[in-house]
């Protein structure tokens, strides 16, 4: 349709890369995934559907309908027949097949669940499961942006041919094609969403996504262009302060947020989906002792810790169950919730626990065992992450006040996970939980992430996941977590989640300190249509399911008049 671009401009931020590192190939680093991130990419390449957290439902984007097949062995989506690419061709099943063909080539995790992507008709695609159907796979399928066959078709065809021959991904052919795909540099960014850009639109200080008329959302959106300012937190702060920006997804320290509020910016707080957890190296005594870990959990005031972590933008962990507190109610059965130990601050109980395993306070007031070994350790934390650093310093101070002897060491952030993987640490801090509607994913981080998911030669946290000591016997915790979200029976999944939650709660393999919220500045002088506080859409966490994505597409958000 020969309509004109809307007037307004959206001012956001994203730490995109500069050309020549910046390119338009979605299957290589430095492409749309890096440069638009999980917030803005879907405004260019739509996914089949968008997920609304408050009622656990999907709203259509590219897809018209979706669902499991009768026998449950497959999943089917049907695309809208009027969806069009910016170059004029229609969005159809071929695009989906192409998307997944290259996805398989580059090793997408969807292929842990699905076996084959079958084009049923021009607009219908069927995904065949490897094992049992799962809701988790459903989400992966529905939320994956679809790329244009016109751009990647040729490579997809070759990939499919390759799959026919039955070679696996270690083969030379596979690797050669992979390299080719990686080095592919599309000239044009063919969009199904209402915005697209060329490399000329990428400036040093901001890049501009421009409106295009062909998308199904083109006539709904109210912004003619999206301007994304480059930069990480410290370099975008002055921009926010000087009113340059409508909204920023960067993580601002509370002091800055406070200043934002003083400047009249609106702060909208949404879930971030994780928080800092204190991690123990189980291979280092005494951190393998459940009593010691429980004592640790008891003597850290988690509310104070949350405050130091991120001011009012963090909440002390309540249930201590390995599941984000906001999800506990929906994911666990009530009887389990009632049984959970809340680890209220309690020095006496902690002291009793320590004494029960042979510790007593020495003359310096430090806990020591019969041989005089004190409860001392080094705690490494990422220097750059103000929240994690703050949480660590506070936790250390609290523990030391109780009689531990812990020294802090700040490291460049990259080195902390490296040390965790290699098991070269005693105590440390990293995230726990995940913004996901599936309990397994909450448990996954950090239990599996830093243990079973590692290479064989990487000891990680050293937790014996397959022979996990519990109630005097051992359980296969790893398998238990993997099984939680299998199948389509929600109640059964709750039960299984409950079992794991109890184990975690009673053995404290790590201490989930708090949960961080995302306090995002919005400039109401630049935009209109923001949800009121308490609007259910604000349950959508930041990141991939960020509400602005949906609101921009559907035209709820618009420029301030």
């Amino acid at each position: 349709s020969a309509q004109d671009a809307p007037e307004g401009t959206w001012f956001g931020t994203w730490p995109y890369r500069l050309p020549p590192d910046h390119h338009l190939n979605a299957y290589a680093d430095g492409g749309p995934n890096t440069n638009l991130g999980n917030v803005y990419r879907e405004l260019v390449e739509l996914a089949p559907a968008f997920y609304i957290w408050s009622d656990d439902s999907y709203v259509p984007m590219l897809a018209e309908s979706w669902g499991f097949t009768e026998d449950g062995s497959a999943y089917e989506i049907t695309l809208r027949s009027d969806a069009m690419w910016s170059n004029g061709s229609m969005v159809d099943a071929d695009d989906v097949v192409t998307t997944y063909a290259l996805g398989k080539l580059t090793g997408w995790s969807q292929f842990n669940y699905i076996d084959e992507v079958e084009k049923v008709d021009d607009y219908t695609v069927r995904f065949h499961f490897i094992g049992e159907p799962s809701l988790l796979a459903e989400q992966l399928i529905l939320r994956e942006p679809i790329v244009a066959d016109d751009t990647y078709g040729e490579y997809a065809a070759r990939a499919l041919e390759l799959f026919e021959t039955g070679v696996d991904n270690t083969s030379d052919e596979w690797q050669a094609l992979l390299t080719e795909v990686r080095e592919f540099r599309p000239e044009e960014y063919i969009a199904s969403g209402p915005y697209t850009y060329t490399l000329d639109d990428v400036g040093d200080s901001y890049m501009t996504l421009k409106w295009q008329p062909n998308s199904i959302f083109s006539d709904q959106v109210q912004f003619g262009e999206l301007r994304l300012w480059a930069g990480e937190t410290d370099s975008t702060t002055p921009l926010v302060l000087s009113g340059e920006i409508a909204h920023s997804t960067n993580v601002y320290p509370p002091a800055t947020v406070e200043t934002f509020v003083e400047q009249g910016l609106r702060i909208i707080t949404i879930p971030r989906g994780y928080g800092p957890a204190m991690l123990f190296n189980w291979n280092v005594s005494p951190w393998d002792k459940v009593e010691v870990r429980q004592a640790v959990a008891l003597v850290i005031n988690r509310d104070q810790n949350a405050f130091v972590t991120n001011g009012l933008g963090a909440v002390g962990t309540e249930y201590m169950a390995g599941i984000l507190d906001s999800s506990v109610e929906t994911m666990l059965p009530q009887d389990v919730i009632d049984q959970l130990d809340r680890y209220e601050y309690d020095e006496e109980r902690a002291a009793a626990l320590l004494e029960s395993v042979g510790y007593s306070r020495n003359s310096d007031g430090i806990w020591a065992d019969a041989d005089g070994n004190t409860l001392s350790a080094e705690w490494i934390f990422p220097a750059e992450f103000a929240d994690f650093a703050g949480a660590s310093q506070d936790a250390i101070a609290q523990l030391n006040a109780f009689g531990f002897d812990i020294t802090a060491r700040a490291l460049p952030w990259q080195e902390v996970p490296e040390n965790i993987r290699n098991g070269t640490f005693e105590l440390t801090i990293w995230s726990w939980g995940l913004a996901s509607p599936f309990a397994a994913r909450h448990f996954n981080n950090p239990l599996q992430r830093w243990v079973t998911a590692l290479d064989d030669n990487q000891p990680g946290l050293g937790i014996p996941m397959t022979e996990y000591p519990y109630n005097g016997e051992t359980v296969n915790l790893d398998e238990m977590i993997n099984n939680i979200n299998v199948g389509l029976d929600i109640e059964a999944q709750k039960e299984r989640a409950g079992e794991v939650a109890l184990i975690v709660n009673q053995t404290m393999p790590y201490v989930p300190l708090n949960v961080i919220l995302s306090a995002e500045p919005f400039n109401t002088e630049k935009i209109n249509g923001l949800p009121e506080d308490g609007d259910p859409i604000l349950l959508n966490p930041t990141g991939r399911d960020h509400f602005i994505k949906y609101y921009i597409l559907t035209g709820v958000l618009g420029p301030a008049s």
Partner: protein
Amino acid sequence: MFETVATTTGLIIGFFCGLLPLGLGIKYQQIKPGIIGFVACLLSGFACGMWGGVPMIILSTSVVVSYIYVNRQDPFTSRQSLDEVDFEESTQEYIVRQMASLGRTIRAMSRGLLRNKGGFIGFLGIMFFVVMTVFGPLVIEYEGDIQMDRRQPGATTLLQPPSWEYPLGLDWWGRDIVSHIVYGGQNLIITSIQAGVMSTLIAVTLGSLAALLGGLVDQLISALSNFILTIPQFPLLLVLASILEFDNSFMLAVLLAVLSWPALMRAVRAQVLSLKERDYVEAAITLDLGLYHIIMREIFPNMISYIAINFIFAVRAAMYAIVGLVLLGMSPLTEPDWGIMIWNSRTQGAFYSAKGITWALAPIVAIALFQLSLILFTRSLEEIFNPRLRKGL
């Protein structure tokens, strides 16, 4: 270095140490130097205990003696002819004479210190920081822990702007920034000084060796310094810092020293080469005074002001580098530390908060002032070490 920071024992030691110069001063009617000597002993004893008091006894007594000695005629220098001279002198006389000469040198040096206005201001600046780090802890208590109780109703952070109670405000953990400024200099200053000392030592040793031995040694040292000069330093430091995972700041000092000696080494080498050619060195060679004498007595005293000034520059450079490293996220130092303060205030966004701006600026100002004092002080150093300005033995 300041491990025996300001104790009562130190005060007592200082007091007793001070009695000697005071007594001498009173006895020989040199009250003013006597009192100054007493105060100097008292303070230095207070600051460093035995390590401060005892050396200060010697120094201050020497000064007092030098005042007393002015009025006495040296039997050696006062007579006109050989026959009248009594060349014998008792050990006591000898010691007194030596002390007087030491005292005069000290006085000459302090005159040199006072002569250059800028240099003296620099000296005062340095003294300010020294006094602050040594005596500050007596007055101000260090706050290392979070102070939740200072949270003001409704406040979303513990940050507070300056007030009467907290002249520089509170940091993110609600701790008094003044206490961190007072306690936070030690580590940074000491590490910088360590780095400065080491790099100067390396530079002077290698530079002298290269110049004196020449030949292959010279070529090797020059090649090594060229090599270090061409490696990109700052990124290299960054890489090394994360590889070496400093457990203590001493390692950092070593690293900085290893990377920073070449420039000074070149200068020292040139200096020694030129000093080596001086006629008086040649004279010492013909007199067969020995290599040790030539280096320590003939060459070194004439380089000392140069070395001292470059030592100051090395300290400055090291401090730059350490703070730069901290800002890049290599923070091998633990609190309290000015560099860490800058780092923390930055990560907590204090720069952009009216409440936090003093937290952000205080350590920067402290570092800048300290550096400025160092620079200014070099001017006095030139005067202090200039033998032309020293009057008589």
